């Protein structure tokens, strides 16, 4: 029965879904598939060796590591922070949108500032919260929580769609390798070029959505008893906490 050949795929699905060790899962799936297809061991080793050698390009990130760690050491995060802080008079939704644009552009050059732990929590989120408070809204606990979700969401959206603009990102190298196994030749700059409109739409859509969501939450907060103008009380209360 031909269906048994799909066992390798089943192993991958189960392995990733159950959080088995990724490397074990993949190697197991490869070995099982080779055994079922009746490949002899030498041929299997040859397939393994050949595809490793022809896919060495996917580890280009190792070369990039030569620079990224030392950039961090020289204050890259502080520099990014001071760039973001030039944003004034915006709502939280807009701040997140600006961060999205900023993140996409830097991602296209494969520059990262430390993700949620390193940049969103210490820099972006406090800026967003401060922006709404400066506009006279006292944020409810729910609003705070929703803003955290949005900040992490913008981080992910912008990073995912920005990263693919970098010529030589591992995802596109994998696409190139997969296509080449199937007999199609595709070039990295073209693979990246198609993603330009996608990245623009992704950040625009997410910004508009978060902007509207944040505005709705602000109105909700104002109705809930913290009217505009109660800034002083609101901020004192926050400091006291």
């Amino acid at each position: 029965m031909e269906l048994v050949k799909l066992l390798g795929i089943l192993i991958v699905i189960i392995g990733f879904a159950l959080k088995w060790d990724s490397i074990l899962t993949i190697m197991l799936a490869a070995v099982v598939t080779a055994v079922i297809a009746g490949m002899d061991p030498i041929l299997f080793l040859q397939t393994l060796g050949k595809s490793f050698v022809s896919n060495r390009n996917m580890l280009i990130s190792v070369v990039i590591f030569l620079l990224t760690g030392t950039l961090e050491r020289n204050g890259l995060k502080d520099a990014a922070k001071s760039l973001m802080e030039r944003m004034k008079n915006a709502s939280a939704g807009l701040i997140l949108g600006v961060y999205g644009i900023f993140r996409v552009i830097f991602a296209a050059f494969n520059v990262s500032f430390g993700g949620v732990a390193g940049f969103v929590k210490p820099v972006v989120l406090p800026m967003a919260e401060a922006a709404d408070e400066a506009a006279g809204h006292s944020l409810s606990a729910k609003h705070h929580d929703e803003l955290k979700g949005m900040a992490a969401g913008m981080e992910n959206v912008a990073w995912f769609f920005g990263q693919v603009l970098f010529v030589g990102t591992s995802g596109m190298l994998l696409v190139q390798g997969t296509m080449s196994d199937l007999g199609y030749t595709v070039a990295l700059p073209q693979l990246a070029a198609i993603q330009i409109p996608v990245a623009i739409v992704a950040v625009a859509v997410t910004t508009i959505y978060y902007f509207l969501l944040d505005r709705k939450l602000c109105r909700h907060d104002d109705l809930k008893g913290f009217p505009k103008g109660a800034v002083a009380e609101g901020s004192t209360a926050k400091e006291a906490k």
Partner: protein
Amino acid sequence: MSILEFIQSSNITLSEKLLEIVYVIIGLVCIYAAMRNLRDQTNEKRIGTAIFWGVLGLLFIIGRWIPSEVAGGLVIVMVLPPIFKQVGAGKDTMKPSEHEMHEGFQALGSRIFIPAFSIGVVALLFALFTSISSLVGITVGVFIGMIILAMMRPKANGPRVFLEDSRRMLDIVGPLVMLPTLLAILGATFTAAGVGDVISDLVGAVIPQGNLVIGIVVYCVGMALFTMIMGNAFAAITVMTVGIGAPFVLSLGADPTIVGSLALTCGYCGTLMTPMAANFNIVPVAILEMDDEYGVIKKQIVPALIMLAFQIALMISLVVL
């Protein structure tokens, strides 16, 4: 072919020769990490760690010149330490302190972006103006960035700092750096074993072959769903492309560049919607101290669905119309 013949041969492009040098550099960085870990008394798993990085580095340098079955054997040797959880890192004594980073910022300010952008800019220039691989461009960009950074603060950024920092990065990422490569190997094994034919027979029984629009919709939605199940678009793309992309979209003459590129980001839409991608969707909940475990995913569903629809429409309009 011997190494000398390789260098002298006019049949081999300059790009290919330069790329081989890039691989030697990668190999040396890995071997440096292996040696450092081997001598690191604070690393409890130093033997396994050294085997992993050492064999990886060796494969990069000599992989092309040895028989492929030997290379295959070395790949097996290399994956054994991570499978048996024998790869780890010692005490990170080189971690930059807040003070050190702040000092760097005081000295450099926004000028730090010049070396930061050099990788992308040089890669782009290589892609636009030469026929040399973009990966060579990236490597040149990295070295230019290193030189600029070293010239701006010569005392703080000696050669050893760069080497140690890259070793740190390798230790942080660990064996997962191999994931895309291993998935590509798996894809090659699937293709060699004829797995794609079986899937396309199965899918062919459900959807009509020869209808490009239906093929694209099934491929893109399939990428998103499959990624949601596995939590990883890289794992999904090999299987989905071999099984559905090739027979139902590419064989009908669709442009593989457009199809392949957008399929990957359709998968990313799946990543945004699944708790399986814990690194992106669940870990931030803990970092940001949120009450709702799915608070991040909930904010990503609307953008992800809109982007999936947008990309399907884009692929159809670029390929079919």
